[in-house]
């Protein structure tokens, strides 16, 4: 049990997927201007990353490894993720319309979110077992959402701040993320 707790703390705080592992930066900066879109995107990512982590793990150990096709991992995983996103979209539309309404516009964007593929590959590289894969995928996605909500709450204050005009928009957002990452560096060593 302690191992899993360590895995969770390390995935969310110490090696935060965006702020320390540099994954998923495009959506992180792209949809973090408002709080509600940040929360929506975060929920969609948690959902898809956890599912994708489980399925790609099964694909790796049940299909690619026995057939000796490890070198096809990149192609296989991206196809799994792309079709998974499509399936989730259709499933939600039919059976959980309320959730589809909330997450709808974020789902197609997730295919090219490198955090999804990145986490799937890390799961394999770290040789996690199935349970660790589930926990690590979920916790990493929670870390992504946490960072995104934090950034969105900071960016919502930009309009009232006096920012040099050349730095308005993306440059100041980058520097803000840098400071956020600096704060997260403080968690280094927390898990030993």
């Amino acid at each position: 049990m302690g191992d899993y707790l360590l895995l969770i703390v390390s995935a969310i705080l110490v090696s935060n997927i965006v702020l320390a592992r540099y994954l998923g930066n495009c959506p992180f900066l792209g949809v973090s201007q408002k709080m509600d879109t940040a929360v929506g995107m975060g929920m969609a990512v948690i959902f898809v990353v956890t599912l994708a982590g489980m399925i790609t793990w099964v694909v790796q150990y049940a299909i690619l490894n026995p057939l000796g096709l490890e070198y096809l991992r990149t192609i296989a995983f991206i196809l799994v993720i792309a079709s998974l996103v499509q399936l989730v979209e259709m499933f939600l539309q039919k059976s959980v319309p309320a959730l589809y309404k909330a997450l709808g516009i974020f789902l197609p964007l997730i295919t090219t979110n490198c955090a999804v593929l990145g986490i799937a590959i890390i799961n394999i590289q770290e040789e996690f077992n199935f349970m660790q894969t589930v926990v690590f995928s979920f916790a990493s996605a929670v870390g992504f959402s946490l960072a995104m909500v934090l950034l969105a709450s900071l960016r919502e204050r930009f309009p009232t701040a006096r920012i040099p005009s050349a730095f308005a928009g993306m440059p100041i957002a980058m520097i803000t993320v840098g400071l956020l990452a600096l704060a997260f560096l403080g968690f280094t060593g927390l898990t030993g």
Partner: protein
Amino acid sequence: MSVVKEFTKGFWQELPPFRLVLGLCPTLAVTTMAENGLGMGLATTFVLVFSNLLVSILRKLIPGKVRIASYIVVIASFVVMAELLLQAYWYPMYKALGIFVPLIVVNCIILGRAEAFASKNPIILSLADGLGIGLGFTISLTVLGGIREILGSGKLFGAEVMWSSFEPLGFMVKAPGAFVCLGFLLGLMNIISRRRPAH
């Protein structure tokens, strides 16, 4: 003339990742050293040129509805080739870039060029576009890597370049330094492009 135009736009007008803010993950992650930036840039250029070529050749055959999925398969195939080539001929770089080699597949610049350019233009123009954007990306990454390497470890391409009493700013080679450095470069680009007359 338009071949030249498509080739050169990647160096200023549409210079990634500064003018097109796409492909940020590799930009931030591998630029702790100029050499890694160069390696990542070249690997991305390889994938970009060949995926642009193939998408352009197939542009009349791919049905509109499944085009994104087809582009992803094309890109993923070239990424696997790049992965195997790096493993065979430039193993230290393969190790240094790590997880970001397979992640070239989700670099939005490549899918963006396939969708916005190669799927609508003839082969020669698409090649010029891919090569220009790819080399622009390579130069950006090398410059960013160079700045971070000089400030963060006092070296450039592994050779000492700063005076002996220089204290390296350790945080420049860590994640915060990447974001802050890119933020300042973006701001600087804005100032420069404002001075130049708009095209």
